[in-house]
């Protein structure tokens, strides 16, 4: 089996996160780590007709539920003093 080398470019500003991650990899393990990430991405995104058929059958069985979105709901997970500080900002 022949070894194939593929080069690609990155933008040092837009792709800062990717660059940091790549630079954090040990020099001897870079290719393997990149292969794993690419494989995981392809596996995750390869939707088959079977997946679509099953999703339709699920919908048929359980029906479509629509939950109204409430934008004005209080943010209960944010501490009250933080929300209070926010509301007073600029007063």
């Amino acid at each position: 089996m022949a070894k194939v080398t593929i080069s690609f470019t990155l933008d040092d500003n837009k792709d800062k996160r990717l660059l940091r991650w790549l630079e954090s990899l040990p020099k001897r393990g870079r290719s393997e780590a990149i292969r794993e990430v690419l494989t995981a991405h392809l596996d995750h995104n390869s939707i088959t007709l079977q997946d679509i058929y099953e999703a339709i059958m699920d919908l048929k069985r359980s029906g479509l539920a629509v939950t109204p979105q409430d934008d004005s709901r209080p943010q209960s997970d944010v501490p009250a003093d933080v929300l209070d500080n926010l509301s007073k900002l600029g007063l």
Partner: protein
Amino acid sequence: MEVNTVNIGLDLGYSATKAVSTRRKVKFPSVVGTSDKARFSFSQDGAGIILAEPAHVLVGEQAVTQSRFVNRREDRSWIESAEYYHLALAALTELTTATVAELRIVTGLPVAFYNDKDILRNLLLGEHRATREGRRAQVFKVTDCRVIPQPFGALLAEALDDRGNVADKALATGNVGVIDVGGKTTNLLSVSRLSEIGRETASVNVGAWDVVRAVRGWLADHCPNLDLRDHQVVDAIVARQVKYYGEPQDLGPVVDAALEPMAEQVIAQATRLWNGGANLDAVLVSGGGALLLGPAIEAYFRHAQVVSEPVFANALGYWRFAQHLSNAQQ
């Protein structure tokens, strides 16, 4: 007739005016110039901002390229000048073409001038009338206005979502330093649980234009006949090279020479103010100069990061805060 309130984030900087609403995001140079009828009569295609009311002036890029006389102030009383008012109105006409609009505006002031917030608030609150060349007159009714310390905008842009809800709880509940590198000044803000810590907040009189000026001076000496606009000089500084008669010229040494003392000054002030910065959960770097100074600040503070869209960060944060106020009122 029911009028919906439009939420607006307005960031008037010495260099550029940025404004954000739900639908639009605009930016133009903070320049107001005299109108020159002989010229602009040929180009009424809507490309530029020409105010006919409250005064006949060119604003933004149009003023830079066409006005015989331009006003570009950089002082504390700028907010009380006609130019500032015209820039604010021009921004509003860029965001909406509605003939009558009810607005909630969130804007900011440099931390050193924050005591002037009531002056600015009173200036913006109330009814304003503006007319753009070729458009119908517009009336802006500002019913609510908040003025916050400028760098707060960048933090709110990161901590809130587009609905104004807290999206990043760690940032909202943590201790955060913000370094806002503007054109003329760099503002340092320390925030704990979304409340400003006054004793850890200050302003440094250096900004991105110091670097641009230094590089422009070098180019005048070494690359005569190379006529670059300001944003092209900034691009060249970020790329660290410029093409002169097709040949790349290395700007690395001159950029480093200009950036180093500036970065050192900002970092020294931040370190002193924030007692080394180790107790902060994050340091956010924003502003038009963030792309220039960011790398040096990130290299010094391991938890520092340049925010996404650093130029628009303050305006975006103001708008998100306006969205929050709007939701809270409902």
